[in-house]
């Protein structure tokens, strides 16, 4: 577990996919983790347009010494209860995702993992706990480029998916699963007893950060479902069913109104849709190699 020493506030400016983040924090321990996570990304210019002005502050003075706290702030607002200060990094990552979900209405935002190969995107929508992050992380070390473990950002110009390569929070068993499966995976410190259990973050692979400007054309939508010990079962999904499921699995489908309907319909029309139940990551990773129209790398 990390312990954070604190001093006067420091500024960080970094790019996360289409968003530029400016973070101001007096919590010193955040700096090495941010560097470790996002250093490979191109640094924004000093006068770059900032989409998200974030702060992770210390709690009130009386809480500085006994059970110190971390408070997340977005544009002078405090949307959440404080976290224990040694959980400042999970708080920052979670808070950033929340801000993107609230502010990213330029995009149709689906709750999904996204990977790319040959310029084509594979979208893995899923409910929390269905193994989406684990599957996305595993595929990122099997010949796919990691675009996001949380958001499929669909633009309005060409209907492309924009990468949002952020630290992927692996929860509980997933931490050891990914360590065993992908020894090259870089996993950060383990945070015990967060609101989502034990969490450790997978650092986005280097090429994911270096190529975070490169959008991809959606080609496949696969709804994964992890069931322990289950044999692989993968089948085509009708477009109407895929539409219904995706509309319920979006951060802003309702908010976008007619725009959301049209953009989702366009997305579904250009994709082959499947649903997959699996018990072993190896099985589903192999099956995805056989996706129609996928060219071997």
């Amino acid at each position, binding site marked *: 577990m990390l312990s954070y020493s604190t001093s006067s506030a420091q500024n960080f400016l970094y790019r996360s996919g289409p968003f530029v983040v400016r973070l101001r924090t007096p919590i010193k321990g955040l700096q090495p983790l941010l560097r470790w996570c996002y250093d490979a990304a191109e640094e924004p210019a000093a006068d*770059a*347009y*900032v989409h998200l002005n974030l702060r992770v502050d210390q709690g009130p003075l009386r809480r500085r010494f006994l059970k110190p706290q971390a408070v997340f702030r977005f*544009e*002078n*607002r405090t949307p959440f209860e404080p976290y224990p200060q040694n959980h400042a990094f999970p708080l920052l990552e979670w808070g950033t995702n929340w801000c993107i979900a609230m502010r990213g209405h*330029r995009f149709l935002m689906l709750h999904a993992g996204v990977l790319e190969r040959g310029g084509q995107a594979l979208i893995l929508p899923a409910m929390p706990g269905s193994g989406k992050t684990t599957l996305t992380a595993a595929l990122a070390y099997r010949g796919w480029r990691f675009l996001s473990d949380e958001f499929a950002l669909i633009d309005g110009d060409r209907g492309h998916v924009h990468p949002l390569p952020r630290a992927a929070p692996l929860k509980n068993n997933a931490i050891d699963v990914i360590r065993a499966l992908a020894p090259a995976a870089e996993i950060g410190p383990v945070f015990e007893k967060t609101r989502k259990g034990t969490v450790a973050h997978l650092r986005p692979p280097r090429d994911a950060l270096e190529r975070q400007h490169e959008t991809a054309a959606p080609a496949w939508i696969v709804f994964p479902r992890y069931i322990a010990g289950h044999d692989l079962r993968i089948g085509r999904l009708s477009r109407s069913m895929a539409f219904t499921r995706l509309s319920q699995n979006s951060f*802003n489908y309702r*908010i976008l*109104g007619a725009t959301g309907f049209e953009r989702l319909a366009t997305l579904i029309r250009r994709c082959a849709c499947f649903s997959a139940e699996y018990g072993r990551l190896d099985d589903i990773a192999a099956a995805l190699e056989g996706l129609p129209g996928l060219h071997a790398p």
Partner: protein
Amino acid sequence: MSLLLQIIADPATVATLSPQQWNVLMQEVRGLRIDARIGLLLEAQGLAGVCPADPWHELRAQRHPPQLVQAQMRLELRKVLKALAGVDTPLLLLKGAAYMLAGLPVAQGRAFTDLDILVPRNRLEAVEAALLGAGWRHQKSDDYDQRYYRRWMHELPPLYHPERGIVIDVHHSILPLTSRVQPDPGLLWADSAALPGSTLRVLSPADMVLHSAAHLFHDGEISGGFGNLLDLHLLLTDFVRDADFRARLPERAAQLQLGRPLYYALSFSQDLCGTRLPDALVAHCRHFAPGPVPGWLMRTLVPPVLGPRHPRHRPAAFAAWLLYLRSHWLRMRPGLLAVHLTRKALRRASAQP
């Protein structure tokens, strides 16, 4: 000076902003959650093309949430009308819903959380019974809150429908019954107008401004009310083109006992948002001004809590607290206020674990 206030007063200067200034402007805009309103205001002035792509994308994208809210409000209103079909009562829309259905420029990109309607006081019980019968529920079931609303307030305890969650405030007056001034609802009804092709009514333009002014400068805490000041700026900018409105406003303010709030509305809207008001109108309202000491206090306290906050400045907490006390002072007699604040404090204390 705040860049946001500069842009509201003189939108064309948006063309001169440096990248760093855009960053500051957008922080002010996001902090006040008025992205959609500012984007539409710039677009209405033909200035969309001079905005850099990044902030423009953001200003435009943030139109979607208020659009959804406005659509939900229209739906809620249809449900309310259906539920009240059997009740013989006129219905008048207030604030956001009125601006939206009257098609006023102030409604552009404006989100709102409650549906505010006005009914005559002797129809209040029938309206409440019909809404409860059609599935609406009381938001506050606590006995003290229920009694507080019914005895002292100008509205029923807030109602909401569990399936949709939108809060409906049914008013019979525009200021609390305990308030030091009591605008006569009969006068408001007499000047109101029916919306074209509808049985719903809205306040006259002068009364809309006076209601908004009373809400911000008499009944409310002022702090955090920038959206309300922007309403006043846009309503006034729209209405002052009409000679009848200009002539009627001061006289109507006197009739409704709302001269002082109107004075504050005009002067702060002018000072902060640069509202262009005819000299004659301002001169006519000068006699509503407070004495030198309260006037100085308001000029000192209000701008820091009402105007946009520079991203790197601390909130004006002390000024906000003084204005909060002022709003309660205007709302209730001192004895009643003491009883109310004691009840609230005791309840907060007993709610602590």
